[in-house]
C-alpha cells in the first residue's frame, strides 16, 4: 500500500490512543521505532490489509482520548493499518462523530429532532444561544451543538454529554429531560450522573419481549438465568439447526427492522450458503428518529440479545458475530459488552458454546453517527472500515455480505423474538397477532402523549388503542397527526386511527410500521418546523452515492423552505416539483434512505394538506 504521510509526527496521546486498540507496533514498518530486525525484513501485504476493519475502532480511540483526529494521528493510524491516508480521511470525514478540527474536550449535543421539538427543544436551544452563545462555538473547553434524534424520545427534550480524555477520563452520559440550567451547569464544568432505564409503562404481565426489563439485573448473568435466561439456547441445542429454523419458519416471524422479510427464510438461506465462513450481524444501529425500543432492550435485558444471537449463529453456522450499536447509546453498549464478557466467562460464548462443541463469539462494534449505517450493506462497509455507503443488491447479504461472505443480519427486536419462539414453539408464537403479522410488536410512543415509552402490543392492535394505552393526548388537545415509522415513515390522520398495526394493515392505508416509531402530534405541534427538520435530516444523512438522493434531498429542503417562507406566485409549481423529486429519489436510489426520503413530506402534502396555500 502506498502510504504517503505529510502531517508530521503523532503526539504521544495519539500514539497511545491508537495503541490501546491495536497493541504496540511490531516494527518500524508498522509505525514503531527502528530496531535492527527492521533492516532486512518486513511482513505486510495481505496480513496487514486484513486489519483494515479496525479503522473505525482506531478512529473512535483517537476521538475518545484526544477529542479529534489530527493529520498526525490519522497518519499514524494509517501506518499501523496499512491504509492510504487519503482513504482513511475519506472514512473519517464520512462519520459525524469524528472531528477533523481541534475540539474542546466537553460537548453537549442537544436533540432538536421531532419528539424533542414537541417537548420544547427549540425553546431550549434558543435559551442556550442567549445564555452561552450560538451552537458550535467553543467556550472555556466546552461546546454545545444541535443533534438529530438521540433515541431518548420518551424523556424529551434530550441531550448527550461527552468529555474526551485518556482512559477513564473519557466519559459519556445523557441528560434527559434536559433543561437550560442543567446544560449550562455541565458546560460550566459540573459533573453528571448516568441514569438508568426508565420504568416500563406497561405492567409485566402485558409484556413478552420486555418482560424482564426493570425486573432482572441487566449486569448479572445469574439474575438473567434466574428469570428464564438461556433456556431457549438449551432448547435450540436440542432441536439442532434445522429444528430451530423450522420453528422460526413456523412462527412466520417477520423482520422488525423495517423491511419485514420472513426471518425463517433468511436463516435458511444463510444456513444453506455453500461459501464459508458465515457471519452474523445484529443491527443495533437504531437511528430512525423516534425509535428507541432496541436501546431499551439492550439497556434492560442485554443477555437476551446475546442469547438470541447465539441461537441464530448456531442455526445458520456462524462462528463470528458482530453487534453494531450506534455510538449515541453508551449505556446500551456498556451493558452489551458486559453481557458478552459474562457470557464468555460462563461458557455461553467462545470455542464451546454451552458444552455443545460449537464455536461462536460476539464482537461489539460502535457506529459513528451515520444514520445510513442502519442500512444493512452500509453497516457491513462500516464494520469493514469503509465509508458507510450502501452496496447494490443483489447480491443479497445471505450470499455476499460482510467481508464478502454469506451473512445473517437481523435487527435486535427480531432476534429477541426467537427466544419466545423456541420457548413456546413456533406454532404457539404464531397464534398471537394476525395471520400475516405474527407475535407482538414494540412501539415507541413519543410526542404529545401523556405516558411516552416503549409499548408491546399484539400485532393488529389499532393505533387508537395504542395511543390510549399511552394515556392519550393531554387535556383539551386534539390530534393533528401521527407520524408512523419515523422520518422514513408517513403521517396518518385522526380518521385513520383505527388502522390495525400490522404489516398488512398499515400497507392498506399506504403507511408503514417501519421501525415502530409512533410520534403523536397534537394541535400545538409546529408541523412546518417538523417537515423542515425531516428534510434537513435527510439532506444531512444522504451518503451522496446516488445523485437523485444527494441532490434530491438538498432540493427538497430548499423547496420546502421556499414554500414555508410565505405565499409565492409559483406555489403549485413548487409542490409539483417536490412530487417529481420524490418520484426520482424513489425510483433511482439504491437504498431505503433515498427511496423513503420524501415519504413523510409527501404524505403531509397529501394527507394533511400542509402546503395547500
Amino acid at each position, binding site marked *: *500500500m*502506498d*502510504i504517503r504521510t505529510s502531517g508530521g509526527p503523532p503526539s504521544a496521546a495519539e500514539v497511545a490512543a491508537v495503541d490501546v486498540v491495536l497493541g504496540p507496533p511490531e516494527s*518500524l*514498518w508498522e509505525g514503531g521505532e*527502528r530496531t535492527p530486525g*527492521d*533492516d*532486512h*525484513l*518486513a*511482513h*505486510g*501485504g*495481505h*496480513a496487514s490489509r486484513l486489519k483494515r476493519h479496525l479503522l473505525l475502532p482506531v478512529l473512535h480511540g483517537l476521538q475518545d482520548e484526544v477529542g479529534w483526529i489530527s493529520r498526525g494521528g490519522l497518519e499514524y493510524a494509517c501506518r499501523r493499518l*496499512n491504509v492510504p491516508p487519503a482513504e482513511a480521511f475519506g472514512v473519517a470525514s464520512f462519520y459525524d462523530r469524528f472531528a477533523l478540527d481541534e475540539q474542546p474536550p466537553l460537548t453537549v449535543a442537544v436533540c432538536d429532532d421531532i419528539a424533542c421539538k414537541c417537548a420544547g427543544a427549540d425553546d431550549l436551544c434558543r435559551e442556550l444561544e442567549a445564555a452561552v452563545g450560538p451552537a458550535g462555538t467553543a467556550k472555556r473547553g466546552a461546546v454545545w451543538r444541535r443533534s438529530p434524534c438521540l433515541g431518548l424520545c420518551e424523556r424529551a427534550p434530550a441531550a448527550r454529554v461527552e468529555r474526551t480524555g485518556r482512559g477513564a477520563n473519557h466519559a459519556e452520559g445523557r441528560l434527559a429531560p434536559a433543561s437550560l440550567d442543567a446544560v449550562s451547569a455541565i458546560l460550566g464544568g459540573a459533573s453528571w450522573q448516568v441514569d438508568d432505564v426508565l420504568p416500563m409503562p406497561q405492567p409485566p404481565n402485558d409484556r413478552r419481549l420486555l418482560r424482564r426489563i426493570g425486573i432482572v439485573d441487566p449486569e448479572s448473568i445469574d439474575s438473567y438465568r434466574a428469570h428464564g435466561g438461556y433456556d431457549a439456547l438449551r432448547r435450540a441445542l436440542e432441536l439442532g439447526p434445522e429444528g430451530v429454523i423450522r420453528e422460526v419458519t413456523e412462527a412466520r416471524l417477520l423482520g422488525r427492522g423495517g423491511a419485514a422479510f420472513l426471518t425463517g427464510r433468511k436463516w435458511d438461506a444463510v444456513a444453506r450458503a455453500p461459501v464459508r465462513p458465515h457471519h452474523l450481524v445484529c443491527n443495533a444501529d437504531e437511528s430512525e428518529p423516534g425509535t428507541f425500543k432496541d436501546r431499551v432492550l439492550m439497556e434492560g435485558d442485554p443477555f437476551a440479545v446475546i442469547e438470541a444471537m447465539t441461537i441464530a449463529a448456531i442455526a445458520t453456522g456462524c462462528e463470528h458475530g458482530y453487534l453494531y450499536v450506534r455510538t449515541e447509546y453508551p449505556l446500551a453498549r456498556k451493558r452489551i459488552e458486559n453481557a458478552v464478557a459474562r457470557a464468555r466467562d460462563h461458557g455461553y460464548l467462545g470455542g464451546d458454546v454451552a458444552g455443545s462443541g460449537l464455536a461462536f463469539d460476539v464482537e461489539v462494534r460502535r457506529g459513528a453517527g451515520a444514520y445510513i449505517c442502519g442500512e444493512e450493506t452500509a453497516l457491513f462497509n462500516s464494520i469493514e472500515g469503509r465509508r458507510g455507503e450502501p452496496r447494490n443488491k443483489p447480491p443479497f447479504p445471505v450470499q455476499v455480505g460482510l467481508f464478502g461472505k454469506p451473512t445473517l443480519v437481523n435487527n435486535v427486536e427480531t432476534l429477541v423474538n426467537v427466544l419466545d419462539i423456541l420457548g413456546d414453539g413456533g406454532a404457539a408464537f404464531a397464534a398471537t397477532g394476525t395471520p400475516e403479522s405474527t407475535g407482538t410488536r414494540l412501539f415507541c410512543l413519543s410526542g404529545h402523549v401523556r405516558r411516552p415509552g416503549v409499548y408491546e402490543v399484539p400485532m393488529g392492535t389499532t393505533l387508537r388503542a395504542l395511543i390510549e394505552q399511552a394515556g392519550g393526548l393531554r387535556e383539551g388537545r386534539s390530534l393533528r397527526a401521527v407520524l408512523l415509522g419515523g422520518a422514513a415513515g408517513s403521517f396518518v390522520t385522526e380518521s385513520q386511527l383505527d388502522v390495525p398495526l400490522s404489516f398488512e394493515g398499515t400497507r392498506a392505508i399506504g403507511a408503514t410500521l417501519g421501525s415502530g416509531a409512533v410520534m403523536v402530534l397534537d394541535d400545538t405541534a409546529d408541523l412546518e418546523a417538523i417537515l423542515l427538520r425531516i428534510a434537513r435530516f435527510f439532506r444531512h444523512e444522504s451518503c451522496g452515492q446516488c445523485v437523485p438522493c444527494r441532490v434530491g434531498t438538498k432540493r427538497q429542503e430548499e423547496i420546502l423552505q421556499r414554500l414555508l417562507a410565505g405565499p409565492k406566485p409559483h406555489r403549485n409549481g413548487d409542490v409539483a416539483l417536490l412530487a417529481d423529486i420524490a418520484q426520482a429519489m424513489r425510483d433511482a436510489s439504491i437504498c431505503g434512505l433515498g427511496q423513503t426520503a420524501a415519504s413523510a413530506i409527501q404524505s403531509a402534502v397529501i394527507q394533511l394538506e400542509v402546503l395547500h396555500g
Partner: protein
Amino acid sequence: MFGAGGGTSSYREAEETDLVLLWGSNARETHPIFFHHLLRGVRNGARLVAVDPRRTSSAEWADLWLGLDVGSDIALANAIAREIIHSGFADTEFIRRATTGYDEYASCVEAYTLERAEAETRVPASAIKEVAHAYGRADRAMICWTLGITEHHNAVDNVLALINLALLTGKVGRYGCGLNPLRGQNNVQGGGDMGAIPNRLPGFQDLEDPAKRAPFEKAWKASIPPKRGYHLSQMFESMDHGEMRAVYIVGENPARSEADQTRAVRLLGGLEHLVVQDIFLTQTAELAHVVLPAAAGWAESDGTVTSSERRVQRVRRALEPPAGARDDILIICDIARRLGHDWGNPTAEQVWDECRSLSPMHAGMSYARLDELGGIQWPCPDETHPGTQFLHGRLWQDPVEGPRAPFSVVENDPPVDTLTDEFPIRLTTGRRLDSFNTGVQTGAYSSPLREREALLLSPVDGARLGIVDGERVCASSRRGSIEVPVRFDATLRPGLAFLTLHFPDQVATNVLTIDATDPKSGTAEFKASAIRVDKIATVPTT
C-alpha cells in the same frame, strides 16, 4: 530466456498467478503499467515477495520484504534453491525431462546453507526458508526483475540464478508461471528485437551464424560483418584507446547516463567526429559536431513498439514535428544516400514489412492484424497465428521439443566497489515514478510528486555524521566527489544511501558510480558504489 530475449509471460498471467517474486524491481514506480496487473493479482489473492535492498513503494505492497545487502542476490537465490531441494519441492520429473546440468547445479547450491545466506545477504534465515517454501509449494509463481538484477558487474549470473529457480520447480512454460525482465521503457524490448544490440540481427537472430546472416545479405544486397560489434562499455574502452574516433548516437544521452561520468564526458569530448540524433539538445548533443533534430517517436512518428510481454503495438503520428525535426527513418535514409546508397523514402509500414520478411517471429504481424488484434505477442510466424501468450510451453511436451533448458552454475560474487572504513556507505541508484532516466524526456515537466534531488540517507547515518535533514554534504567515491543536499529517508537502513540519475545537472550521480562492467552483458554496476559522506567545512566567520 534460453535463447529468447524476452519475458516469458503475459501481463494477464500476473493477474492469475499465486505468487510473484519481485526481485530487484521497484515496479510500482518504474513499471506502473505492469504493476497494475500485478496488483490485480494481489487483489485476487496472490502473495507478493519483494527482494530489494530498499523497502520501496513496491515492497510496501508485499507480504514479505527481504532487504538483502546490495549484490548478494546469488547467495539468496542459491540458498532458496538448496532449501527447495532439501524440502522436496524440486520438480524432479520436469528436471529430468526438460533440463540439463542439474547435478552440477545441485552440488553448487549445496554449499549455500540458510546460515551462509543469512551471513552474506543479512536476511534472516527463517525468511529465506519461508520464501523457498512459498515458491516451492505454489502452483503458479512468477519471478520478475529489473535493473536491481542487471546493473551489476555479474548481471548475467544474477539472471541465471533466477532462471535456475524456475527450472528447479518447473515454473516456466506454464500459464501463470514464468521469468520476466520488466523493461524500463515502452520499447526497450522492441529495440533489442530489432537488432539494436551488438550480436543480433532483427528477430533476435544470431549475427555470427552465417545461415541467419544469409537472408539479410540477400535482401540488402550487401555483406554483413560476420563478427559482433562492441557494446556500449566496449565502445568507451575503444574510445579510450583512441581506436574509435567517430560516433553516431541516436536517442541516447551517455554523457549523463554512463557510469563514471567524468570519464564519459572526457571521451565523448575527445572524439574526432560526434553525431547526435535526438529530440532535444541533450548534454551529449552539446558535445557533438553535428546534431540531427529528430521527431518524437511516440507522438510525431508512425511505427511499432514492443512491450515487456513481447506485444508489438502500433504507434501513430498525432502531431507534425516542429520545423526542422524529421522522422528517424528519413534521416537515416538521407545519410545512406549521402554515403551512396539510395534506399528511397520508405514509410514505417514498408520498413516493418521488410522486417517481417526477414524475422520469422514477426512474420505474421501485418499492420492490419496489429490493428485488429490490439497488438500481437511474438513469436507470430504467419498470418493465421494468434501470437504467443507465454514462451517455452515446449518444455512441457514429452519429449521436449527443441533443446532442453540448461541449469547454470553461478556463485555469489559481491560488488566490485568494496566497503571500507574510508568508503563505508553503500550507494545504490534507481528511478522514480515521475522521472525518466537522465530526465531528457521528463526534466522539463513539473510533477507534484517530485522533490528536489537529494542523497537519500538513513536518519541513523545522519545522526552519526552530525548532519541535519536538507544539509548540503560532500559525497565521495573512489572516482570523484559531488556536493549534494541530504534528505533523510527512514525506509533506508543505516549504511545504505540512494540517488537517482534523473537530474544530472543538479546532482551528477554518475560521478560516483563505478564502471565495473559485466563482460557478458556490458552493463555497468550502477547499483553498488562505495561512498563516504562528509560535512562541508564551514568557512569560519571572523
